[in-house]
């Protein structure tokens, strides 16, 4: 494929950012979750 | 005792801010020399008379924006130092009046600053000004100083007292004032006739500056009270 670096780079940057954001969010959630009682978690 | 109305608050705050300036002379002793220095630094960096003449308008407004950051921070440092804003709020003063008072005081300082910058540009960068150009330039300075006064007071009030305000204010303010930089620069270039620009081309940009000032005058007077009300 011509210009493969640019094209794969775009896909990698896009998916990579999404995965990193998701991972950071879930990790932070897990950290605080144990300190919060289930009654405060409105979504449960 | 009845609460003072909006007009009285406005003139009291305006006069107070200008009096503080007259007594402390921060503008004349520190900001104006800084702005002049920036204009000289531009000349060192660009090092070409033709280029300087061509870009004089842009340099004047860049210097204005950077100096305005200092003036705005100074304008709110005097308020947050003794919790003066808190006292005004507790007293139940009309905060829209405070907003307009501070904004116009700021605008007046910016007009003085721009006057000095324009004279510096005429001397150092050898730009010429004709009669119609002068009228255009004066209107342009009045409109953009008012617009910058409104936006500066709004964001200055928000960042006053916040940690890291020195770095937060430019981040918030500079994107918002981009239209002022574009419009005022084009109008000033038209007034200086740099790059063969016609004076008449500048008036549309002055119109944009007036719209900007009107939008943020209304928006600012609505938002300022809730923003500093804590």
């Amino acid at each position: 494929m011509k210009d493969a670096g640019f094209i794969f780079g775009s896909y990698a940057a896009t998916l990579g950012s999404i995965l990193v954001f998701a991972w950071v969010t879930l990790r932070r959630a897990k950290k605080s979750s144990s300190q919060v009682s289930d009654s405060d978690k409105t979504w449960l | 005792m009845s609460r003072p109305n909006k007009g009285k608050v406005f003139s009291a705050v305006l006069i107070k801010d200008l009096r503080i300036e007259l007594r402390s002379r921060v503008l004349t002793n520190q900001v104006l020399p800084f702005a002049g220095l920036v204009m000289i630094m531009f000349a060192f960096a660009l090092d070409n008379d033709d280029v300087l003449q061509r870009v004089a308008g842009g340099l004047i407004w860049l210097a204005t924006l950077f100096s305005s950051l200092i003036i705005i921070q100074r304008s709110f440092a005097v308020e947050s130092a003794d919790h003066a804003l808190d006292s005004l709020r507790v007293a139940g003063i009309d905060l829209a009046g405070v907003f307009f008072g501070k904004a116009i005081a700021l605008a007046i300082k910016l007009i003085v600053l721009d006057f000095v910058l324009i004279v510096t540009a005429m001397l150092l960068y050898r730009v010429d000004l004709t009669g119609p150009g002068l009228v255009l330039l004066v209107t342009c300075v009045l409109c953009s100083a008012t617009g910058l006064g409104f936006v500066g007071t709004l964001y200055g009030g928000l960042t006053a007292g916040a940690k890291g305000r020195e770095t937060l204010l430019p981040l918030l303010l500079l994107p918002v004032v981009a239209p002022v930089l574009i419009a005022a620069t084009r109008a000033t270039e038209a007034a200086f006739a740099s790059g063969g620009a016609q004076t008449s081309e500048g008036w549309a940009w002055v119109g944009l500056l007036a719209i900007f000032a009107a939008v943020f005058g209304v928006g600012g007077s609505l938002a300022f009270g809730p923003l500093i009300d804590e």
Partner: protein
Amino acid sequence: MSRLINSKSATGTQATRVLGLLAIVVMLWVVVSGLVFTPQDVVQGESVRIMYVHVPSAWIAYLAFILTAVASASWLIGKKHSMGFDRFAGASAEVGVMFMAITLLTGSLWGRLTWGEFWQWDPRLTTTAFLFVTYLGYLAVRRLDGSAEQRARRSAIMALLAVLEIPLVHFSVVIWRSLHQGATVLNPSGDVKLDDLMLFTLFSGVVGFTLVFFWLVLHRQRTMLLVDVVNSRGLDAAIADRRAEAGN
């Protein structure tokens, strides 16, 4: 990947797990179809493949900022000042800023291939860049010290001021560019002939990115609530300590 839909995640529910799975399936399809199945474009060649991630990112970025503004206005107007609106606004802005960064990055890579330049002073690009910086400022304001109520009020007003600012920036850049017709912007995107599979892939991209957006916002919003609860608990504990001290 399985970690992301982990049933033990603190902010996950049945709904987010279904949403997450759907998002993963659609995104996998977009990647495979965008990179392998779709043909190259007559004008743009292979670089058209970047469009399958660029266009949906841009769509999500703008959607995020519209939702932030709507949620901020709802917080301000609502009598109860429900903090849910504030957290939604904040979560949506964070995810939006990320997608805006992706949009600018993939856009400039595409531009390098098609225009030969990473950047053009085109009104759409310039406004997008200003929107990005403006919302970075918004997120900085959210991080200022203060109570949750203060944060909500400040940031709601900031979001609404951005709604004033962005049209002014866009308008001034449009007339700035139209007066200074320098290099004519080569704009091949107008000539693209999309076949059915290309259109379908682009459409799936929009759907997939929207699913990802809502999955991220839901989790981020709930995480914000958790952090708020932990922080306010810390404050309550400190107040209780002081009370006990004063009582002695």
